[in-house]
């Protein structure tokens, strides 16, 4: 009952504050639009907004970001379905079946399913988050120290490395490259300059926002440009025919399964929503009697992936608020918002600023509900974007990216870094490496090293210290098992042929 009362108070606080309502609505529409416009993402919007949150209260800033998170994850599905450009990595599996559906002229059905399932997954997840975060924060204060957090980061990276790219080797090398980029700058313990090559810019480290913009937005434009020039680009066909309710009801088990998978994956650091979407999709394939239909435009593929990734949004707030550990790029930016207001996310925020937390929770709940309403109204506008020839969209996207990268710190060199990352991403993707893996390594690298150093100091540099810390030990063992199993599979299991070309490329 406590949670219900708090939720009611949060709702009243949210909707009795005119500025709060304006920010809430801007977040809902903005997240959806930026999530949906190909080549930009909710991260672009969040990056551009980040400097301005200094002028808002902490409550409004965090609330804005959490609302953008909910609706942006849905918005990214629209580009995944219509353009085969996932708005963010968590929408990638949506494209596997969503894009073939577009090619078959069923874009409307796919988008409609994404609207419904995102709203359902997200709302259920928000409710679970409200019930679970407080007890977990209480428990975390006593049970989670740096050794556990390091073990959690390790486990998250091990899973991401094993399944994030074409082969486990390419997955690991991608993550390791990201970890190496995170090393550039000052070391977290002694403040010693590393790999700065005497350039002042590198002292502050390579910022993850230009890197993300480059790897995801810019490299995608370049891939599309190559297809355009070589004549392989094909404009998708259009239709607006939403799925019927009975059609969705037939997939109720897929929805429930994806909610459960999504929520538990969302709690993991680093890959939360991405892993959730992939696992949700993969389980849908495994449980299906018509598994060879997947990848060719099966509605259940879109449903499983979109339910799971939105179910992960609420879950991803748990490690952020209960442990202070960001689960992805957007939650990492929320850490930035907290820091701008001289607050550290973690169990203490939850205990000291309960008002803030519950306004954020209420906002996330209603943001997920509003996906239903606005999703149906706005989607038709967004589908019209399809009629814009890509060569006209590309300059807009590249310039939005330029503004986004520049606005982070007001440094032109960030724009250069972004475009260089775009070119690198273009060539890395030709060779099967995972740009998502690199970005994950980059984001978790700093936290990983810092918690590793603290853990080693706490345990007096003895790994055996983990034997007295069962949670950390279990996470480490799980990480090593994941790695071992995937290495074993790489050598002894039959290789899987890539899905047919037309389902993969634009």
């Amino acid at each position: 009952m406590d949670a219900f009362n708090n939720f009611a108070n949060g709702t009243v606080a949210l909707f009795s504050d005119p500025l709060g309502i304006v920010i809430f609505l801007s977040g809902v529409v903005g997240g959806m639009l930026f999530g949906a416009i190909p080549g930009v993402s909710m991260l672009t919007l969040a990056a551009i907004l980040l400097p301005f949150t200094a002028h808002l209260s902490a409550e409004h800033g965090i609330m804005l970001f959490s609302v953008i998170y909910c609706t942006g994850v849905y918005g990214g599905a629209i580009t995944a379905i219509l353009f085969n450009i996932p708005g963010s990595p968590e929408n990638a599996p949506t494209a596997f079946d969503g894009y073939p559906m577009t090619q078959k002229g069923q874009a409307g059905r796919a988008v409609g399913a994404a609207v419904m399932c995102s709203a359902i997954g997200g709302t259920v997840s928000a409710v679970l988050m409200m019930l679970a975060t407080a007890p977990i924060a209480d428990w975390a204060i006593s049970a989670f120290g740096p050794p556990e957090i390091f073990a959690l980061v390790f486990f998250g990276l091990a899973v991401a490395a094993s399944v994030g790219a074409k082969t486990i080797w390419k997955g690991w090398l991608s993550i390791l490259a990201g970890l190496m980029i995170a090393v550039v700058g000052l070391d977290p313990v002694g403040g010693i300059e590393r790999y700065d090559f005497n350039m002042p810019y590198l002292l502050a480290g390579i910022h993850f926002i230009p890197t993300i913009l480059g790897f995801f937005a810019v490299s995608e434009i370049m891939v599309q440009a190559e297809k355009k020039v070589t004549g392989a680009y094909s404009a998708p066909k259009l239709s607006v025919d939403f799925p019927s309710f009975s059609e969705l009801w037939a997939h109720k088990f897929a929805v429930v399964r994806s909610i459960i998978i999504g929520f538990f994956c969302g709690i993991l650091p680093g890959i939360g929503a991405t892993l959730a979407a992939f696992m949700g999709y993969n389980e849908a394939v495994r449980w299906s009697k018509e598994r060879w239909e997947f990848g060719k435009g099966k509605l259940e593929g879109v449903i499983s992936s979109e339910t799971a990734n939105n179910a992960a949004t609420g879950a991803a707030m748990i490690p952020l608020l209960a442990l202070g550990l960001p689960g992805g790029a957007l939650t990492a930016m929320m850490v930035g918002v907290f820091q701008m207001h001289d607050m550290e996310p973690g169990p203490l925020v939850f205990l000291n600023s309960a008002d803030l937390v519950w306004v954020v929770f209420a906002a996330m709940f209603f943001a997920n509900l509003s996906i239903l309403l606005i999703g149906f109204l706005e989607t038709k506008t967004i589908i019209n974007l399809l009629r814009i020839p890509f060569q006209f969209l590309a300059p807009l996207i590249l310039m939005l990216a330029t503004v986004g990268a520049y606005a982070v710190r007001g440094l032109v060199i960030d724009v250069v870094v972004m475009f260089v990352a775009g070119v690198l991403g273009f060539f890395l993707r030709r060779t099967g490496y995972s740009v998502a893996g690199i970005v994950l390594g980059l984001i978790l690298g700093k936290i990983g090293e810092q918690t590793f150093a603290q853990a080693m100091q706490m345990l007096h540099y003895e790994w055996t210290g983990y034997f007295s810390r069962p949670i950390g030990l279990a996470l480490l063992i799980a990480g090593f098992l994941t790695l071992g199993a995937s290495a074993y599979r790489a050598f002894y299991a039959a290789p899987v042929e890539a899905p047919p070309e037309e389902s993969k490329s634009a």
Partner: protein
Amino acid sequence: MGNLKTGHLVEAGLWLLLALVLFIYSFEFNNSIEIYKFGASGWPRAIILLIVLAALGQLFWHWKRGEGGATSKLNAAADDSVEAPDDHSSLGWYAHTFVLVAIPFVYMRVPDFIGGMMGLPPDGLGTIKMLTAAPLMVLFAWMAYRNQVGGMLALPIFFAALLEDMGFYALAPVFAMGVMYLMGERRIKWMAGVAAGVFGILLLLFVKLLYVGLPTGNVRPFYDFGNWVVTVLQ
């Protein structure tokens, strides 16, 4: 040689070379930290070791399995790699593209270098910068005309390299038209219209509504133009 192809050896070689370079540079910050036994270089060196292991593991795997395919269905699903078209994977294409991508870096280095030799202060380099930029632009246009995809890869970097000096306001419309041209658009009226529209939207959204300060440039007359735009809008 098992199932190895030259490409696999080159790939492994590049990773090992990267690891070696990073390892050598790690001696520059190999300082001990009083409160931390592993020092500043312990973590990076552990990562370098893992890179070497993974690169060798991949080489061994290719030796046993050839090209191999994805290691599991989940890996195949996560794979977002792109096949290179045949005419864009020759050595000649890579070399041509490499030169194109190098042009912006030439611009970022050369004026400072010349200015240093002539003993000019860093803010007195305007003329030299313009004199460097002009021939590089001509060279770039000539090369990009013959290799449009390479041009598309390099043009944004060139744009970013010029941004500090010439400013967003003067460069953005030209950049937009360049992108459209390289993507195959040839109708001048459409290109001009879209460039103006995109530029207008960005100015309204960011300069007028959000007050994001975009780079105005620091070389005249671009600097004056950028400031004039900002003054008019705000």
